[in-house]
Each structure stands twice: as structure tokens, then as C-alpha cells.
């Protein structure tokens, strides 16, 4: 992997002073990538693509949007009706947010299934969790900007969560609002931060990639790259594969944009914000519903807030909660089952979050919340000790090149145990 010899004199001149072409060659062309990555590994690049789409459409929206309580709703409708292709830009941005979360959630669950958070990729994983938290904050503040009924009441509910904290709660909430209720100062600061945070995310994505490129991608077998026979250059193999994945994503994304642009949103947000009228039901966007369900599962306000934050923060310590040395769930018969139960659990939480906290939803919400924490705090550490993993293949290249087909043909390696 020596530095390439550049033939073009201008490229050579620049590269000698600032090796940007060598960097690109090193990290996007020559970059050694495990040869066995499946399609679940497409979602990282898809997330990056959507971040760019969100920033580009967002910058264009900001050129026409007015962050004032009396004008915000009308300015959004002006974008929809009078700005050339304004409806397209806004629907791309609205649905892009949903697609971004969909892709990122798949990306996170991919990491959970294949143990991508384990040594030496803990920091890579933690940077990802920070990105996820910032995405949630950004999305929440973006949802407030059109100043519809759900914007206003979501802002009221979510900022009020901080009042649960003893002593300082009330002051913190007033500080967040910039006044004594959700009002113009709140809208102004949310707009400012909604514009800022995506660029912070952008910076964190580069740290995420830096950490990734230090130890390279994990892979479906979860075993280390042993040599050049296990890898292929990123270009053309994964560039071709990522381009195909991107086209499939665009098909899904644009089908929503053009044919069901309001599928993910609440009709109430097309009613201008009215502090005197509370909507029948206040619900966040779908991607925050599981957390909303956890919040409401606890009868105590502070308890709910703490559990909701804990449900994300717990991901930071996951690399140390998981005691198994085997990464991929393919070789972990019990963990594999637990993974799918967790997926169902998270979907159940989302479903509970979408409904009023009454009757059976309270019971399901509490069970699902409890299970979420049991999974990470009890089952994951315990299974790492108790489970007997299946034998790992000798190398990534062996099952592919050996012609044996699957890991069964490879000589089992001594069991890796903690």
C-alpha cells in the first residue's frame, strides 16, 4: 500500500504539499475491505449520503424560511406553494429525516448483530452513539420549525422533561425556552441549533470514519483480517456495491416523496400552532416513539426521564457489558435469538409509543421497557459467559476461496472464551 505515483504534474504538485490525492487513494480506492461484507454493510454509506441530502435541502429551505412565531407556518406554506420546486425540497427534507433514521437504525442493529462494537472498535461505536443522540436532537428541533400544532406541543412536552430534575429543573426549562413558555425565543434558538448541529454531526462522521479506517470494517464472520487474501480494494468492488444500494434507497425514498409525502407525519402539524388548544394526542415522529414509550412506562416523571436517557446512554457501555469474545451472532446460537427478541421488543415499544397510554398499552409498554434493560444489563453479560459459541472459521478468505462453501469446511479453531 505504498503511495501512488501521480502522473499529472498539477496533481503531483498539490499532493507533494498536501497529500489529499494520496489520502483519497488510500481511503477510498486502495482501502482494504473484508471481501465478505454483505448488504447490511451498505447502510453506513447510505447514512452518509442522506446526511448530505439533508444538509443540501436544509440549506435551501433556510433561504426561504422565517423563524418567527407569526411567520414560520406561513413561510413553510409559501415554500410549498410559491417557491419553485419548494414542495420537492421540503418533502425531500421531511422524508429524508425518516429515511435517515431508518437507515441509521438498521446500521445500529447491524452492529449489534455482528458485534461491531467490540474491541478494537469501541470508540468507533461510541462515536456512532454520539451521532445518533445529535441526530435525535436535530430532528426534534427541526420538527418544531414549521410551528404547527405538533411542533409546538412536542416542544412543550420535550422541554418540560427537564423540569423533572430536582432543584434546577425549573430553571433549566426556562433557560431552554428563553422565557416562561415555548415562544419566539425558543423557535429562534431551535432554528439556530437545527442549522448548526448537522455540521457537528458531519465532523463526528469524519471521526467515526477515522476510527473505522484505523482497524477497518468488521465483517459477517466477526473474525479478524489475516492477510491480503481476506480483503479486496474498496474501489471498484464496494463503490459498485454502494452505488447499487444507493439506487435502491433512492427508489424507496423518492416513492415516499412523490407518492406519499405525508405518510410519516401527523396531520395536526398542518394546523398552525395554538398555545390555547391542546391536540387530542401529542406524539413524536415515528423514530422517537420507542423512547417516548419508555418515558411513559414509568409512573414517576423523573424516573421516566432517567430511563429514557438511560436507554440510549446504555449503548455507550455495551462494549463492556458484552462478555463474549466472539463477535458475530452467526456463531452465537443464544445471542442470535436474543438479538431478534430485542428487535421485536423495540418495535413493540414503538407501537406502544404511538398509542395513548391506556389499558393494555401500559402493560405492554412496561414489560417491553423492562425487557430492554434486562437485555443489555443482564442477558448480554450472562450469555457471554454461559453460551457455547459455534467453532469459528479459520479465516475470511478460507470459506470463500477454499470452495468448501461454508464455515463447516474450515478447521475449527480452539473455542474463544472469555
Amino acid at each position, binding site marked *: 500500500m505504498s503511495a501512488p505515483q501521480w502522473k499529472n504534474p498539477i496533481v503531483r504538485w498539490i499532493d507533494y504539499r498536501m497529500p489529499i490525492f494520496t489520502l483519497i487513494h488510500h481511503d477510498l480506492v486502495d482501502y482494504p475491505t473484508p471481501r465478505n461484507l454483505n448488504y447490511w454493510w451498505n447502510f453506513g454509506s447510505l447514512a452518509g449520503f442522506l446526511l448530505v441530502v439533508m444538509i443540501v435541502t436544509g440549506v435551501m429551505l433556510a433561504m426561504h424560511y422565517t423563524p418567527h412565531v407569526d411567520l414560520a407556518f*406561513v413561510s413553510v406554506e409559501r415554500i410549498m406553494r410559491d417557491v419553485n420546486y419548494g414542495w420537492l425540497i421540503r418533502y425531500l427534507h421531511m422524508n429524508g429525516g425518516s429515511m435517515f433514521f431508518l437507515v441509521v437504525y438498521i446500521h445500529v442493529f447491524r452492529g449489534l448483530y455482528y458485534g461491531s462494537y467490540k474491541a478494537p472498535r469501541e470508540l468507533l461505536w461510541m462515536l456512532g452513539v454520539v451521532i445518533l443522540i445529535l441526530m435525535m436532537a436535530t430532528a426534534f428541533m427541526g420538527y418544531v420549525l414549521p410551528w404547527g400544532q405538533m411542533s409546538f406541543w412536542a416542544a412543550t412536552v420535550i422541554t418540560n422533561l427537564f423540569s423533572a430534575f430536582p432543584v434546577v429543573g425549573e430553571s433549566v426549562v426556562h433557560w431552554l425556552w428563553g422565557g416562561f413558555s415555548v415562544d419566539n425565543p425558543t423557535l429562534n434558538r431551535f432554528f439556530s441549533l437545527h442549522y448548526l448541529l448537522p455540521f457537528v454531526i458531519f465532523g463526528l462522521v469524519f471521526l467515526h470514519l477515522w476510527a473505522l479506517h484505523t482497524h477497518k470494517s468488521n465483517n459477517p464472520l466477526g473474525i479478524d483480517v489475516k492477510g491480503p487474501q481476506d480483503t479486496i480494494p474498496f474501489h*471498484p468492488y464496494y463503490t459498485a456495491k454502494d*452505488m447499487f444500494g444507493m439506487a435502491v434507497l433512492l427508489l424507496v425514498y423518492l416513492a415516499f*416523496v*412523490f*407518492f406519499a409525502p405525508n405518510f410519516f407525519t401527523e396531520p395536526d402539524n398542518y394546523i398552525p400552532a395554538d398555545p390555547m388548544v391542546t391536540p387530542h394526542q401529542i406524539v413524536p415522529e*415515528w423514530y422517537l416513539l420507542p423512547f417516548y414509550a419508555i418515558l411513559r412506562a414509568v409512573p414517576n416523571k423523573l424516573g421516566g426521564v432517567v430511563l429514557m436517557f438511560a436507554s440510549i446512554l446504555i449503548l455507550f457501555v455495551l462494549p463492556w457489558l458484552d462478555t463474549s469474545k466472539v463477535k458475530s451472532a452467526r456463531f452465537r446460537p443464544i445471542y442470535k435469538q436474543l438479538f431478534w427478541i430485542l428487535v*421485536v421488543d423495540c*418495535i413493540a415499544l414503538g407501537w406502544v409509543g404511538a*398509542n395513548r397510554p391506556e389499558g393494555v398499552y401500559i402493560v405492554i409498554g412496561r414489560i417491553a421497557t423492562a425487557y430492554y434493560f434486562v437485555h443489555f444489563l443482564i442477558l448480554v453479560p450472562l450469555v457471554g459467559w454461559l453460551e457455547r459459541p459455534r467453532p469459528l472459521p479459520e479465516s475470511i478468505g478460507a470459506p470463500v476461496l477454499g470452495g468448501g462453501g461454508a464455515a463447516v469446511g474450515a478447521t475449527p479453531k480452539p473455542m474463544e472464551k472469555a
Partner: protein
Amino acid sequence: MRGKLMAGAAAFLFALSANPAWAVEQSRPAAQDWSFSGVFGVFDRAAQQRGFQVYQQVCAACHSLKLVHYRDLAALGYADDEVKAFAAGKEVQDGPNDAGEMFTRPALPSDHFVSPFANAQVARAANNGALPPDLSLITKARKGGADYLYALLVGYADPPEGMELMEGMSYNPYFAGRQIAMPPPLAEGAVEFADGTPATVEQMAADVTTFLAWASEPDLEERKRLGIKVILFLLVLTGLLYASKRKVWSDLH
């Protein structure tokens, strides 16, 4: 694994579509066959024009349409001078003029639809305390959209045995809470359609719903037209990219 993935995907899609249920104190509107639904749907121009007439002669007495300009009516197939005439039928306040006076003038195509009430307080005072909502986004701002609006307009009935209505309220099972401050707005023959269509309640309700669906989503036709081209293009592109991926990877296996 694959089976589980499919099950997971199905469960996920189910979760996405599991919107909050209809409130118990409200009936679910029946789905209607709209000219503008579906991938190829466009607004029925004649229905839009009839619906505009219903809005003008019935709804506009109480309901504003603040986000729509008179010039937007060109999309309904009206000629420029017809649009000018519609606008000129209303007075708007303008000014100050050179003498510093506010004055009224006939509305222009560039003006927004003139609202029936100067402000919300006047509107409430004139309507028994209830505020008639602006209709600019009505089909987007209500769960059920056009189906809901139609069901509401034709859904007035006598209250069930034993139900006490509040003073000045009407029974309508499709409205949240089942009682609505708006009296039944449409009566047989309330308007006389220029094209001779009999003005039944169902006909007027369907037409005004079509008109208001357009007012809510004036982008709908262009959006779908462009969308078909974009999706067809992407299908071809996806096929080509899949073929090239296969070609690139073929030397590995």
C-alpha cells in the same frame, strides 16, 4: 435467518403504519374513489370548478382560505379575465396612499383569498363562540383527509336516542366528540351549478372536497407527474448498477 428478516421487516412496516387509532368518540370515514388518488391521479377539472362554486357560495360565508391566491385559480382551468373577475368581486384594504390614508380597492389576482372575518374574535362572536377553521390545508390537516371531509359534510344525522346535544350544536358522528358547531352546511339545491349538474348534497360535498384537496395540495399533479418519470429512471438506473456490480464482482468468485 431470511425468514426472520422477512418477519422483522413485516413487523417493522406494521409498526410504521400503526398510526394512533381513531378516537372512540368519532366514526371512521369510508374510503371514496377520488379522481386525484392513486399514482396517476389528477384533479377532475369540472369537479374542481363546481367545488370552487360551492366554496364561494356556501363555505366562504364563514371559512377563510388564506393561503390560496386568486391567481392560483388558473390551475382550475379558468382564463385570466375570469380569474380577474373572481378577484374583483372582493374588496381588500390597502395603503397607506400618498395622503397617508388606508383605502379599499377591488382584489387583484395576486391577492390572497379575502377572509370573511377580520380576525378570530369577530369570527367567534358571529358563530356562537366557535371558530370556523381556515380551509387552506383542511384535507392535509385532518386524519382521513378527503374521505374525512366528505364523510363530515354528508354525515349529519339525528342524534341517537338519549344523547343530549349542547346549545347550538349539531350531531355528526364523524366529528371528534360527535357534536359540531357548524350547522349542516349543504342542502339540496343550495347552489345552481353552471354546468347543469344536479346539486345534491353528495354531489356538492364531493366537489367541494375535490376543490379543497387541491387547495391543500396544489403541487399534487406536478408531483405525481414528475414522480413517475423519476421512478422509471431509477428503475433503469438500479438495473444497470446491479448489472455493473455483478460484472465488477464476477472475478472474485
